[in-house]
């Protein structure tokens, strides 16, 4: 039974059509609109774009909750703050000296050579990260994102991994982001994101990923190049199975 009203259906269709024609406005444009810094022509374009992206307008206008406690639980706040403090502490831990960095680069270059030769064990030993290291090769065509890639990389649930999705971008981007989608069910569902991932000297984008807490199934990791907006660069299909 179709429970959607005619309004909702028409509205969805209009938004869908509009979004194909008009890109979302930037935050700078919307702020400039709010501050009255745009010419009437520019303002009209931004307003029209906002009409097709109401969630962006809502982000800028939604009032603050009077009482945060009515929206989030104390447990969420406590666990979030604890994780945040850990991340801040990690971020402010001293960077390795230049000499050590050079050494690490050389070591990783050697590691790549070893891996190519089939010495995966040596690779794991020399890698500084904890967890099982896995090199991911891209699915191929980006069109594979929708339907799932080719042969999936098989990983185990309940395991700590260092994933090294390998990809050579056509051009450098300001930053890179990886996002994991659960594609087992109907619509893909974003389940984890790694922002500001750095490209390692071996050409991979290493991330630490624990599959503890993830169910068996099919997942897709998407690598984005982020400049003014994020552009998907490569996808990696992963199948999680019980060990």
């Amino acid at each position, binding site marked *: 039974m179709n429970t*959607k*009203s*005619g*309004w*909702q*259906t*028409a*509205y969805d*269709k*209009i*938004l869908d059509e*509009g979004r194909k024609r008009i*890109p979302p*406005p930037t*935050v700078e444009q*919307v702020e400039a609109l*709010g501050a009255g810094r745009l010419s009437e022509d520019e303002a009209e374009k931004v*307003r*029209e774009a*906002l009409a097709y*992206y*109401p*969630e*962006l307008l*809502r*982000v800028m*206008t*939604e009032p*603050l*909750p009077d009482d*945060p*406690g009515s*929206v*989030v639980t104390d447990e*969420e706040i406590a*666990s*979030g703050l604890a*994780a*945040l403090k850990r991340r*801040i*502490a990690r971020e*402010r831990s001293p960077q390795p000296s230049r000499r050590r960095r050079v050494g690490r680069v050389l070591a990783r270059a050697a590691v790549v050579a070893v891996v190519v030769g089939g010495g995966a064990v040596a690779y794991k030993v020399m890698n500084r990260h904890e967890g099982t290291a896995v090199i991911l090769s891209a699915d191929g065509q*980006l*069109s594979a*994102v929708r339907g799932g890639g080719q042969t999936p990389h098989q990983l185990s649930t309940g395991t700590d991994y260092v994933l090294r999705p390998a990809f050579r971008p056509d051009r450098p981007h300001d930053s890179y982001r990886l996002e994991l989608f659960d*594609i087992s069910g109907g*619509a*893909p*569902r*974003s*389940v*984890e*994101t790694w*922002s500001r991932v750095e490209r390692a000297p071996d050409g991979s984008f290493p991330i630490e990923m624990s599959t503890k807490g993830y169910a068996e199934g099919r997942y897709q990791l*998407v690598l*984005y190049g982020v400049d003014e*907006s*994020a*552009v*998907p660069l490569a996808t990696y299909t992963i199948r999680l199975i019980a060990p």
Partner: protein
Amino acid sequence: MADDDPRFTALYKYYPGVLALLRRLGFPPDESQDLAQEIYLRVHRSMKDYRGEAHWAYLEQTVRRVAFNWIRDKHAAKRHAETVSTDVLLTLPDERLLPADESIDRAATAESLYDAIAELPLNDRTILLLQLGGASYEDLRKTLGLSLSAVKSRLNVARERLKELMSREPRQREE
């Protein structure tokens, strides 16, 4: 170090507010936590530019900007690659989608509504779509740079035009 910086330490106490705002914006719990942490890390990295004033106003602006770009990135990614549907956000309740005008037939078919809205002049279409998208009068006032009475008046005009288009036969509308 920034973590020992009392300016940054003072920002920790706003974490519940940051998280609550993200949740209110429709982000699911896990994503809200991730975004909240991204926001604080960003603030942490730019402490040298922060004068330590207006803690919440400073955080709020960062929250809105990061959330905006997060959603925008998803849209941009979809546009560029026809990639996965990641619309985790902001499904608006049906009642917000109905203009407050009972005289426009609620039972009208989606197709005729679509055609009529698409036919409206740009200004009418924009204000109507913004309202359908959940914008309040106050949001419309700010976004359109109009007075409250002008917003109401323009909405009335848009609805009247829509009503007129809806009342025509399909063939008349095509002409």
